[in-house]
């Protein structure tokens, strides 16, 4: 699609240094938006020069509040918020400690709540906006040994719909993107915990109707659409992007 469709828009991307977050920042920058990448990570993950980096711990209410105030003073509004900050824990519930559980919920769910809570007033100043949350196909169907992660994504899906209902009248749209297998450091870690990586990768490709897994650029294309004016009637939905993976039933080897 043509470039420049986000010109004049102010966009905040949490988890902006992660695999998917970086892809989104790059795309937004290419489309002409003013992009702020917020992340707890400071060193890793190179960003395009035009993208502003802000350190953010989404679980820290004071930190979130202060960042929003600073952005509000600097830009006067916020048009686009992408909540991409998330972690995963590769454990069953018996292996998961209460601390693990509280930690993943703090980042994946509470963090989203806090960032949205303090971002909405600045979207109001923009006369509306688009919030894009990161759900997952794991919020619908589970991967083994990802119990707490799956639960956080289910919570994200419900929160997405709830916010869409509450803020629709103010022209703030809220949607979730639900990726399948995307080639990121998080996926490498998931593979790494399950034995021989190369065999596993081939298996995973084979099971996708499109015979590949996704890239951060694939996800950024959907996020870009949801952020822009082409999607003005889309709200409250969970947008699965998975190369056809979850359209099929479990694949048995016959």
């Amino acid at each position, binding site marked *: 699609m043509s470039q420049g469709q986000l010109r004049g828009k102010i966009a905040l991307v949490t988890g902006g240094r992660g695999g998917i977050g970086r892809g989104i920042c790059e795309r937004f920058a290419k489309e002409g938006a003013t992009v702020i990448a917020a992340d707890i990570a400071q060193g890793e993950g190179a960003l395009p020069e035009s993208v502003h980096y802000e350190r953010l711990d989404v679980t820290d209410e004071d930190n979130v509040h202060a960042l929003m105030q600073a952005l509000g003073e600097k830009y006067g509004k916020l048009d686009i918020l992408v909540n991409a900050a998330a972690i995963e824990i590769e454990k069953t519930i018996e292996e998961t400690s209460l601390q693990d559980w509280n930690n993943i919920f703090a980042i994946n769910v509470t963090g989203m709540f806090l960032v949205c809570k303090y971002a909405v007033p600045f979207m109001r100043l923009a006369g509306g906006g688009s919030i894009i949350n990161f759900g997952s196909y794991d919020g619908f169907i589970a991967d083994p040994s990802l119990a707490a992660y799956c639960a956080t994504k289910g919570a994200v899906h419900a929160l997405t719909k709830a916010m869409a209902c509450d803020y629709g009248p103010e*022209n703030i749209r809220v949607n979730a993107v639900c990726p399948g297998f995307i080639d990121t450091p998080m996926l490498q870690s998931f593979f790494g915990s399950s034995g021989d990586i190369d065999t596993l990768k081939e298996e995973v490709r084979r099971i996708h109707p499109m015979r590949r897994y996704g890239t951060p650029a694939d996800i950024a294309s959907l996020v870009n659409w949801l952020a822009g004016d082409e999607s003005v009637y889309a709200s409250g939905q969970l947008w699965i992007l998975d190369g056809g993976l979850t359209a099929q039933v479990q694949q048995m080897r016959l």
Partner: protein
Amino acid sequence: MSALNGKVAIVTGGGRGIGRAVVDRYLANGAQVLSCGRGKRPADLPEAVVWVQADLSRLEDVKRVRSSVLESFGRVDILVNNAGVQVEKTVTETTDDEWDLVMGVNAKAVFLCCRELIKDLGHAGAGVIINLGSISANVADPSMAIYNASKAFVHGLTRSIAVDHGKDGVRCNAICPGWIMTEMAEAGFDLAANPQAAKRDALARHAVGRFGKPEDVAGLALWLASDDSAYASGQMFVIDGGLTAASPLQPGLF
């Protein structure tokens, strides 16, 4: 914008309503378009569009559409199965002829168009099928029994094509519009005891505060046809202004 430069699209039922908005959007984005319908060529259809008068529930008519697109443009990249009809009746009120009409246009025609065109669509390795499903396939509209069922067929077929023909270079997705103000939707309101009150109530149930427009659907149809959605397949994408994200029980309305 020229997201569809060099692409050839078939949009069934492109004479008016949603189909017409898709035709216009595709043209504006550089595609060459063939459309078809049971009636004569609409007088206001842009000259660039090739029109074929056809009843797509008949195989010979589908074959005519195929040879016409290949003769006119030499290829086909995008198939939008948009043509649809509705009969506003419960199961006990529905006659055999009405069943044949609704299932013929909404179900059989989609099957026939896909079957006859998949090979041509997959030729360049990036074929796209976009079917018009409906939120009514997931949650029933009262007194629309066979229509609702026909749209559930479309959703099932969409998943199957994505799963079976992903390896043949074809992506297949469905768009599920909510209330889009077309002649078909007006007819739905006419069923109410008090159409004006029904419209007010329906409006209050939309988070974004308005009914959809054909252009809203065209925005999604453009994204799904473009390379920006290259990893999207096998999904039902809902575009309903937040309608089905909300619970039907809204005490504020009573």
